[in-house]
């Protein structure tokens, strides 16, 4: 064995592991999606004050919910793939959270990124299908495409138009009473979302 050779092996092994350690956020984030979630938990970006339109046709600004937490998800009603699963899980969360919390301290929003097809009538239909009450849980669209794009970008949602709809990364998003995005949850673990959201929103009072 040559001395330099052995030395070099050790140096490379250490440097290589360190680079991998750093570039995966301490072996936590192997995909861009995981990295995005880790970064949002650390940075809590302030979201742009977009204007929504609900199923009644009324316009609401995000800042109207100031003082309340907002739990949001992105979808489009023509989606046959993952969105129905998301909305069913959203219903589980809606039913799983304490009633008083949903009434007073938390707003649930299903935000459509397909403002062309998701008219207020269409949203109303979707509310009926997924048993959203249209009050504490609203289905909304963002009529202004520019605002929509900005919000999607800030939330880290990449929407790719596909053959007969869109493909998008799915999750639940918790926005705090100051309009900051504070948490992103997996869409397929509704019970966990109920637990954590109850804790966070409940802690505000105590």
């Amino acid at each position, binding site marked *: 064995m040559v001395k*330099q050779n052995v030395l070099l092996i050790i140096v490379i092994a250490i440097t*290589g592991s360190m680079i991998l350690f750093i570039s995966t956020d301490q072996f936590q984030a192997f995909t861009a999606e995981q990295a995005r979630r880790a970064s949002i938990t650390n940075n809590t970006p302030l979201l742009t004050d977009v204007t929504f339109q609900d199923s009644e046709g009324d316009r609401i600004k995000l800042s109207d919910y100031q003082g309340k937490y907002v739990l949001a998800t992105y979808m489009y009603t023509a989606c046959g793939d993952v969105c129905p699963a998301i909305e069913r899980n959203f219903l589980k969360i809606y039913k799983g959270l304490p009633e008083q919390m949903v009434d007073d301290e938390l707003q649930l929003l299903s935000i459509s990124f397909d403002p062309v097809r998701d008219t207020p009538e269409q949203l109303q239909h979707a509310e009926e299908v997924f048993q959203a009450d249209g009050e504490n849980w609203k289905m909304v669209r963002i009529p202004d495409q520019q605002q929509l794009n900005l919000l999607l970008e800030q939330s880290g949602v990449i929407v790719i138009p596909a053959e007969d709809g869109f493909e998008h990364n799915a999750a639940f998003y918790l926005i705090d009473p100051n309009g900051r995005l504070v948490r992103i949850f997996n869409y397929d673990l509704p019970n966990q979302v109920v637990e954590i959201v109850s804790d966070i929103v409940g802690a505000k009072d105590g």
Partner: protein
Amino acid sequence: MGKRKWLFSGVALFVVLSLPAMRQYLAVSMIGQMLIQIPLLVVSGYLLGRGIQGRCETIQDSYNHNGIPGFLIALFTSFYWILPRSIDAALNSGWMELFKFVTVPLLIGLPLALSWKKIASIFKGFVWANVVSMCFVMGWLYVNAPVRLCNNYLTNQQVALGRTLMSLAIIVFVFFFLKIFLFDFQKTSNH
């Protein structure tokens, strides 16, 4: 093939891969990027390595005596470019794409060319065994992952890549199986 020809073909392959039209074409699909573009970049670096082989024997003899240091550089760089996160980053940022075009040939292909012959054959067998099983596991993961691993690609591409990876793993496995148990084994039993 003369050293100059190795060198020339390596550079030529790299230039073709860096043409804007080619870059765009291969990045459209996951298979194009991960199973054609990146491997060909490795090949271009490998050809370069064959071209410069023998020019730096003294350094090679002391620092890369058993080929392991060069192999480790290639291994760690491959690990980095296997991360779905890095693949996404190379698509979202021009700098990361440039980084890919520099590191994949120079830190994977080139060190492999300089090291592979020096590596002991038992270690080579170990590497192949791992490559085959990793390939299969990665493929299975891509097919069955409940989430989209790359935000820039559609899920059906992920599934297609996974199936291709699994098929490749099986082909390589069958190749080695036949080679070892039919041909090599016969050779040894004839002795």
